[in-house]
């Protein structure tokens, strides 16, 4: 019969093998099913399937039917019946094209060919090893849950789902990356997130035309609102409780397979300066810490430039005793104030970058070297003055108070710009810098929400919520 030849097993096997370039981890297993001993072919990629699942759910049932009649005589129907009644894997469907089949094959699914059947059965048997759930290294808390996202998309979605057990939680799956075919899940709560926002997010992800999406940062830069801006308009976090909170606020979360960092839109400056830990601490403490963070943010941006600007243009503003101390400390230092500050800043940035890659065993030794040798000895030798070291150290410490890594990075870069402006025009230059920054910040939006909300388009309640951490008993009254 012609059908048999067109869908002959050997040809289909050949087709798949050619498409995959005869990869050595493509396994093909032939078997015979049922009483009629119909030839069938199973194909899978060796390292992507869970062999135990495969054996239990697919091979075993199939091979234990030698005495049973086949469900039907028609091969396609037979295939479908097999999927429905015999194969006990959680998911088993029949697809009609080789492309779809190969896509599933790449995800760890097993293909089942029956001689003469047009369709191909795909059976879910993936079994990647995944990292166990442990504390997110980038955001540690004193009080609060300690589970963090891992690299597997399914596990991540489950971590969020188990926190919000509502039927309104929606998970929409998309695929991005023409080579990597990475799975992306867009999560939102149906009646809280605005439908336009969700549609916008999905369409932006759909427009991503990359070869591979290996980390969420790849798509972050492509879906954010003002791509040329330094400032992050997409929020990223490694904590599922954070994402759960975000969903309940009515925002949209994006989870990317292969990355433990989830993205969230829309995102304003206020969101970047908040942490979920605020809600786990008592409200006076949380309010105080929040203010510390704001102060730290401003200090990080402005401290070196204020130092340079005041000393080189307006030394009369410094109280006389302090001026006298600084003058003494700077005696013998060969560098002018600007150069000294820039030098120390660059040194510190280099140290910071180096410490990321240091093996843990010598990490502490290097930091001692950095602090003592460079700092102390430089001062003693009269190369750098101690006020400069104090300024740079204070700035560096302040930079760690910013919870968001991307924002912290932005401020680090802007700091240098401010120092240059301060050296040209003094405090007036700082003012110009702040003004330009202000113009930029007030004009960018994140998914339609102005970046400086709730401060710039002033909304009183939200503004109060940003400044003070409103205690739960006050919030409780307002919730329906």
């Amino acid at each position, binding site marked *: 019969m012609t059908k048999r030849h067109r869908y002959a097993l050997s040809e289909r096997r050949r087709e798949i093998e050619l498409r995959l370039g005869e990869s050595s981890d493509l396994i093909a297993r032939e078997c015979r099913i049922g009483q009629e001993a119909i030839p069938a072919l199973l194909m899978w990629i060796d390292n992507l399937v869970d062999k135990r699942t495969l054996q239990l759910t697919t091979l075993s049932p199939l091979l234990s039917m030698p005495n049973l009649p086949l469900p039907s005589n028609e091969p396609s129907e037979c295939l479908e019946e097999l999927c429905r009644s015999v194969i006990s894997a959680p998911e088993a469907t029949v697809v009609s094209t080789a492309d779809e089949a190969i896509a599933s094959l790449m995800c760890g699914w097993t293909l089942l060919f029956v001689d003469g059947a047009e369709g191909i059965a795909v059976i879910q048997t993936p079994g990647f090893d995944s990292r166990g759930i442990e504390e997110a290294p980038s955001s540690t808390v004193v009080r609060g849950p300690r589970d963090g996202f891992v690299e597997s998309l399914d596990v991540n979605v489950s971590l969020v789902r188990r926190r919000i057990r509502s039927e309104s939680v929606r998970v929409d799956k998309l695929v991005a990356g023409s080579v990597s075919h990475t799975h992306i899940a867009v999560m939102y709560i149906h009646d809280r997130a605005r439908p336009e926002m969700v549609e916008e997010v999905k369409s932006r992800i759909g427009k991503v035309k990359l070869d591979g999406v290996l980390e969420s940062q790849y798509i972050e830069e492509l879906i954010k609102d003002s791509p040329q801006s330094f400032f992050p308009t997409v929020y990223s976090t490694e904590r599922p409780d954070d994402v759960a909170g975000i969903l309940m606020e009515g925002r949209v979360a994006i989870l990317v397979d292969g990355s433990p960092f989830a993205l969230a839109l829309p995102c304003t400056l206020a969101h970047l300066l908040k942490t979920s830990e605020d809600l786990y601490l008592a409200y006076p403490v949380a309010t105080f810490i929040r203010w510390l963070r704001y102060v730290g943010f401003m200090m990080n941006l402005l401290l070196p430039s204020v130092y340079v600007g005041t000393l080189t243009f307006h*030394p*009369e503003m410094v109280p006389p005793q302090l*001026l006298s101390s600084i*003058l003494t400390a700077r005696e013998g230092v060969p560098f002018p*104030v600007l150069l000294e500050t820039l030098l120390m800043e660059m040194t510190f940035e280099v140290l910071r970058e180096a410490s990321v890659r240091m093996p843990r065993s010598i990490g502490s030794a290097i930091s001692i070297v950095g602090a003592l040798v460079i700092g102390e000895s430089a001062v003693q030798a009269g190369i750098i003055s101690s006020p400069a070291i104090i300024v740079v150290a204070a700035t560096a410490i302040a930079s760690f108070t910013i919870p968001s890594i991307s924002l912290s990075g932005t401020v680090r870069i802007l700091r240098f710009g401010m120092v240059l402006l301060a050296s*040209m025009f003094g405090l007036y230059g700082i003012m110009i810098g702040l003004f330009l920054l202000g113009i930029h910040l007030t004009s960018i939006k994140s998914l339609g929400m102005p970046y400086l909300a709730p401060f710039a388009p002033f909304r009183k309640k939200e503004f109060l919520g940003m400044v003070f951490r409103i205690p739960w008993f006050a919030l409780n009254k307002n919730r329906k």
Partner: protein
Amino acid sequence: MKAVKAGICLLAVMLISGCWGQINFDQLTVVSAIGLDPAKNNMIRVTLQLSNPTLPVAAGGGSQQRRPFVNYDAVGVTIQEAVERIQHQAKKSLFFPQTKVVLISEQFARRGLDDTLDYFWRETNQNLNSWVLVSRMPARHVLDKAMELEPVPADEWRKYLEGDWKRPLQIDVQMYQFLPRLNQTGYQAVSPGIGPFNKSGKSDIMEIGDTAVFKNDRMIGWLSGEESQIVNWLTGASRHGSFHTDLAKEESVSFNLNSVRAKLTPVLSGGRLSMQVRVKGEAEVLTATVPLHFGSEHAMLRDVLNRQLTTAIEKTIDKVFRQFGSDVIGFGETLHRRMPAEWKKRKPDWDEELRGLNADISVSFEVKRSGLLH
């Protein structure tokens, strides 16, 4: 778009390469005191006291091998010229905005300050909060010789003049208050004086006491401590004081005066102007060289105090108005405030008015406490 970017880059390069207006911070030297002396041919000798920055002792700035301050002086027609000459000597960038004290020597003040002090008005770098002192000796000597606890004497003077603790016998005035009063007929300038503690002029320790009285821009005399105290009360600058009364020969009682309020009222009767002075306050006994029975002698003490105070105030007003002819009490301004039309009329001949002014003084102090705790 490309042209705009290129333009911005060019601008940035131009801006970065020339940082105008930057002060060379390391060459800054703080001028802590300015001294003004007269010189020949109507010129001025300016002395600048430059302080060497020293770490505070707590920070381990213990062993100082160098002098804490240096004085430079030069002569010029105006202060500006002299300062420029000093710049050549000092070879450093002079930092004026934190000047602490301006010393005017008595000779210079008596010669007439004229418009030399105009320099402090116009030069934006000058510190309008610096304290003004008139020195009995030439300012150069005072700046050279003065020895104080602080390494730089000007710092010590400034702390003293700034301090809030009670210095009832002391008037203090800052540059921004001193300068306009040089030209104000209704409220003339005064300034505390500084001079060697020992009247013979040989001592190194400087005393800030007495007050120099100015008429227009010329100094005309000194007021003693007690007189300055009274002037302080009448201008409302001070609410405290101390007073010494003599009961009889070798018997005296001193009082501590608090909440002193003086009210000057101009009274116009038939075209003649007279001044009404009302002084009120509380007194407590500080020391007494005679045993006092507070209960019974209360009234007597009060009367003695009031009488002797009235005499003292009369004498002071007499000295100021008639002998000096200068309105340092600010009566003219009081008239200006209450009766502007009258003031306009009398202003041109205010000196004459002062000489013929009748003062009606009434003092009423209450003796509240005996100073002993029972």
